[in-house]
Structure formats: structure tokens, C-alpha cells
């Protein structure tokens, strides 16, 4: 095989300019795909952090079985009692991969400053647990004022647009009203601890965060709606779901567990959109690579018709001719992809040092655009383009191999 590789390598050096232009086309195509992939890889990571930490979904959410379907109609029936909540937290907490299991409860109601009222959606969270879930998220979206406190249960956090609308800034008082679990209206005084940016335009004018026990008081219940789980290794989400479902079922707790991907408002839609864009760009580049390689190899075959005839006369089989040109195509793909990796690395380094900023749809403030370096993806793309160039070369090569030897030898 080495002799044919050597021959293929020398053949691509015959018409250096043409080979170079082909490799540049492949390289630019490679970089277009790899940079876009690096970009969406970074975006997916960002969206994952936003969902798990920013939206506070954690990696997994445990609800009582049937909550998804009927929980809103009969909340008390589909919530966990205080006893069950403690039991679940203990069982889940035994798993080594679990960093945190914490109860949460959601409240929907009306918030007023005494003059103006509007609807709100609040998550009742355990403040010390919430700080663990949020992690470094609050560095990107800091709370103005104080955060939730375990001691000051009536202190709440409010989103920035809702705060602006009601003029409820830190240390100001208000009232929240919500129906209790049994259906009667309840109202409690609140004091604004802090104002935060949810990161999302759609939720910035209606979201609030309450102390878990305050939310239970408002709903007049000792139950928890859900247990949110944060894992040490996020990539173990699916395995942990399977494991916990078995374990909780064995303990006699009927529950349903959903992952953050299933719960996130935006992740799936944004991923589907970006994946579609990726496939679109990938398809265009593939067409360019195939057309360029077919054209280059077609020209090479035309110029070397007599040589093909000679090789066939000397005993090279048709398959051998195809293999020779396929190797040349593969080499064009390989060296073109290497150029692409160099181009990718240059752009990656520039973007890393001088990241451009932009506001994605639905976001509340600009974010930096980064491109991830994903070595495995680069290798996979290199192999794909090498294979594709090889296949693209085989198309004209098969035609060349089927030429009549006498005609090929007489070609001028």
C-alpha cells in the first residue's frame, strides 16, 4: 500500500496550484463546519448551565407519579408529604453521584405593592440549597441586594422587570396572594431582599423566589411539590434517573423523574434550531467538497488518460486504478482538513482573546461568543472529509478504470 500512497502523493503534487486550490476549498469548508460546531457546542454548554443552574431545574426532578397529568387539578393528592419528602431526600442522598437533593414548591398568584397588582410565578426553595444549585451562575447574573435567607422567611427575590413594574426594590414591602392547597385565598406580607435577572426576557417580568417554608405557609401545606437533584457528574443524568426510579420504587414511593432537558423551556427548541442550521451548513460544505474533488480528479484523469492506459497494459486491474485515484482524493481530503484544523485553531484563538458579543433571541443581556475546541469532533470531521473526498474521487476513477486500454493509450 505504501507504494501506492507514495505514487498518489506525488500525483497530487503534479499540478500544485490545482491541488492547493482544492485543498483550500476543503480546508475552508472544514473550518466552516468545525467552527460552527465549536460555537454550538459552547452554546449547548451555556444552555445546559442556564437550565440546571439559572432556571434552577437541577439535573433531575422527582414528582409523585401522575403529577405531570393531574397535579395542577389535585395538587394535594400529587404532592409529597413531609415524611415522604424526608425519606426521598435520605434515599437519594445515599447515592455517591448525588451532590444535593432539595425540596421545592411552586406558587402562582398575585403580588401587589398596595397600589398596583400583577401575577407572579415563584419557586419556593431552601435558600442554602439554592445557593449550591445556582453555583457560579450568580456571577453572571448577580442579585442586587440580599439573597434569600434561611432565617428571614418573608424576604423574597424578585425579577428585574417585575421589580421595575411594581417599584418593589430591596427593603420595600409588598403583599403576595395565592390560593392554598385547599382552594382558599391566602395573603402574606413580603419584603424584597434582592432583585435578579432571570436571563430570559419572557420570565423577567413574572418570576420570584421564595423561602421554601414561606411558600408552604402561603399554600398552607407541609408537603413538597418536587425534589430537585443536583449531580456531581452531569453526564450521568440518564443513568442516575434509571437507578433512582428503581430504588424509589423498591422503597414503595411511586414517582416520576424527569431530566432537565425534558423540563427546560428553551433548551430543546434552541438545540433543534441550531442542529438544523448545522445540518444545513454541513450539507452545503459537503456539496462543495464533493464538487471540487470530482472536478479536480476529473481533470487529473483526463490529463493522465494515457498513463492509465499504460498502467492497465502493464497489468494493473480496474480496481487498482480506482484505488489509486481514491487515494489521491483521500490525500486531498486529508491535507485540506489539516489546513482546516489550522484555520480553526487560528479563529478559535482570536475569538478566545477577543470574544465578540451579541444578544441571542430571548436573552436579557449580551453574551460573549466563544468557540469550543472539541478534538474528537475535529478528528471525526477529518475522517468524514477524507472518506467523502475518497468517494468523490472514485466516481471519475471508476469511469477511468473502465476505459478501453487501446483508446487510453492513443489519447493525446
Amino acid at each position, binding site marked *: 500500500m505504501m507504494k501506492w500512497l507514495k505514487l498518489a502523493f506525488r500525483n497530487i503534487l503534479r499540478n500544485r496550484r490545482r491541488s492547493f486550490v482544492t485543498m483550500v476549498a476543503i480546508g475552508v469548508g472544514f473550518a466552516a463546519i468545525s467552527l460552527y460546531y465549536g460555537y454550538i457546542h459552547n452554546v449547548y454548554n451555556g444552555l445546559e448551565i442556564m437550565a440546571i443552574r439559572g432556571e434552577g431545574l437541577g439535573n433531575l426532578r422527582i414528582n409523585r407519579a401522575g403529577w405531570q397529568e393531574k397535579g395542577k387539578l389535585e395538587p394535594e393528592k400529587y404532592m409529597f408529604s413531609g415524611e415522604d419528602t424526608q425519606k426521598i431526600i435520605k434515599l437519594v442522598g445515599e447515592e455517591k453521584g448525588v451532590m444535593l437533593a432539595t425540596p421545592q414548591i411552586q406558587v402562582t398568584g398575585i403580588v401587589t405593592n398596595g397600589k398596583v397588582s400583577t401575577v407572579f410565578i415563584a419557586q419556593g426553595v431552601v435558600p442554602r440549597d439554592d445557593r449550591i444549585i445556582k453555583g457560579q451562575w450568580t456571577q453572571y447574573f448577580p442579585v442586587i441586594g440580599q439573597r434569600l435567607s434561611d432565617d428571614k422567611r418573608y424576604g423574597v427575590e424578585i425579577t428585574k422587570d417585575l421589580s421595575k413594574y411594581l417599584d418593589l426594590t430591596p427593603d420595600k414591602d409588598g403583599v403576595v396572594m395565592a390560593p392554598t392547597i385547599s382552594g382558599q385565598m391566602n395573603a402574606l406580607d413580603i419584603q424584597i431582599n434582592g432583585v435578579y435577572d432571570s436571563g430570559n426576557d419572557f420570565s423577567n417580568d413574572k418570576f420570584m423566589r421564595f423561602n421554601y417554608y414561606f411558600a408552604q405557609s402561603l399554600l398552607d401545606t407541609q408537603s413538597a411539590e418536587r425534589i430537585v437533584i443536583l449531580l456531581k457528574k452531569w453526564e450521568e443524568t440518564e443513568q442516575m434517573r434509571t437507578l433512582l426510579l428503581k430504588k424509589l420504587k423498591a422503597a414503595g414511593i411511586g414517582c416520576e423523574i424527569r431530566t432537565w432537558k425534558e423540563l427546560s423551556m428553551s433548551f430543546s427548541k434552541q438545540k433543534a434550531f441550531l442542529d438544523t442550521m448545522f445540518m444545513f451548513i454541513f450539507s452545503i460544505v459537503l456539496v462543495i467538497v464533493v464538487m471540487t474533488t470530482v472536478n479536480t480528479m476529473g481533470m487529473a484523469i483526463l490529463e493522465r488518460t494515457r*498513463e492509465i492506459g499504460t498502467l492497465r497494459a*502493464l497489468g494493473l486491474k480496474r480496481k487498482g486504478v480506482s484505488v489509486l485515484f481514491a487515494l489521491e482524493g483521500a490525500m486531498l481530503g486529508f491535507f485540506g482538513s489539516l489546513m482546516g484544523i489550522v484555520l480553526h485553531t487560528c479563529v478559535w484563538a482570536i475569538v478566545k482573546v477577543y470574544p465578540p458579543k451579541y444578544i441571542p433571541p430571548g436573552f436579557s443581556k449580551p453574551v460573549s461568543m466563544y468557540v469550543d475546541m472539541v478534538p474528537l469532533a475535529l478528528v471525526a470531521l477529518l475522517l468524514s472529509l477524507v472518506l467523502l473526498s475518497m468517494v468523490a474521487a472514485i466516481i471519475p476513477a471508476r469511469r477511468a478504470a473502465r476505459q478501453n486500454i487501446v483508446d487510453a493509450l492513443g489519447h493525446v
Partner: protein
Amino acid sequence: MALIEMKNITKDYYLGETVVHALRGIDLQIDKKEFVAIWGPSGSGKTTLLNLISAIDEPTTGELAIAGKDVRSLTDNQKSEHRNKTIGFVFQGFNLVPVLSALENVMLPLQIRGVSATEARTQALSRLEEVGLSDLIHNRPAKMSGGQQQRVSIARALVNNPSLVIADEPTANLDSETARMIIEIMRELNEKDEITFIFSTHDQRLLDKVKRSVLLEDGKIVNGAAYT
């Protein structure tokens, strides 16, 4: 048994609706170790005849056996193997691969057969030495004269130890002195290695050196069909 046996061979070419009768009933027998010239005016069918003998083309009708093998019954792959093992080619335009050195060009038929690089190199060096090109083994064709290229071409034709070498006008592109040298080399190899040489030519100097010449006119053998 004759090395080549042709019975009532015809070959027609189709140029649009026009049929060109390149060969019209050829009966020819060539034995091992012969040094045969096929000659005749342009368009007489010399190259067509050589193409059929070398199994790169097929007759329209007739029987053709080379070393006892009915060439028409072979598959394309079998023909390729047959050419590689049995036949050496010397072309008028040398037909060397320009990106390969003299040595690599000569190694090529062996490597097509799958012989190891070391073995192919040893045999190729030996053949290049026979044609007097030991000093130019690393030169590429572009850096060699016509005569040198043709000698590389002869070394390449011989490297597989074929029983038959086919040469299509091997001296047509060479000056007198070089042509004389090429003829001498071919003649010596014929006598020393007992290889059968069949070549087409217009060259009277070459015709003077052969034991047998076959004259073709209008696709028919006019003279020399049988060895005398």
C-alpha cells in the same frame, strides 16, 4: 506448441456508421524465442495486430491463443494478470510514469503483481544494469534523453521475465545512433534470455536485424505468415 497462434482473425472498428476493416483474416503463428518484425505502410494494421497479441484488445472474429491460452475466454482481471506475467511492453512514446524515477518505473510491473519492494528493487536494478542505466536510476523521465527513456522502458518490459515482449515502433522517436543501440539491446536480450520479441516498425535498420518479418498491407499478411 507455438507461443502465438492466430486463425482467421478479423478486427473491425466503427467510426459512426462507417466500418473500418483493420484486419481481414489473419493467420499467424509465432514460436518462442523468435525476433519478429511486423511492418508495412501506415494504416496497414500493424498496431492493431500488436494490440490483439498483447491482449489489450479483442478480435472481432477468429481464434487467438497466447501460450496456449484462449485470450477471448479470459475475464478482464485474468487478462490483466496475463499481461503482467507474460507480456512486456515497449511503447513508441516510452510511456514512463513521470512522477516515478527510472528505478521506480522499472519496479512498477513487479509491484502491480504484489512482489515486495526489496525484491522488486533488486530485480529492477539488475534489469537497469543490463540496459546500461545503473548511474541514472534515481532520475525521473523528464531528466533523461529519449534513448535513456526507451532503455528504461525496455528494462520495465523485461523485469517480470516475460515470455513475450511487444514493442510498437520502439525506434520511431529516436535518432539513428540511439535507435541502433536500442536494436542491439533488444537483439542481445532475445538471444541471451530467449525472450520472444515482436515489434512493429518502419525502420529498415531494424528490419535488417530480424530473422523474420511479417509484411502487412490493408489488414492482410502479404509476406511472412509462417517462419521460414
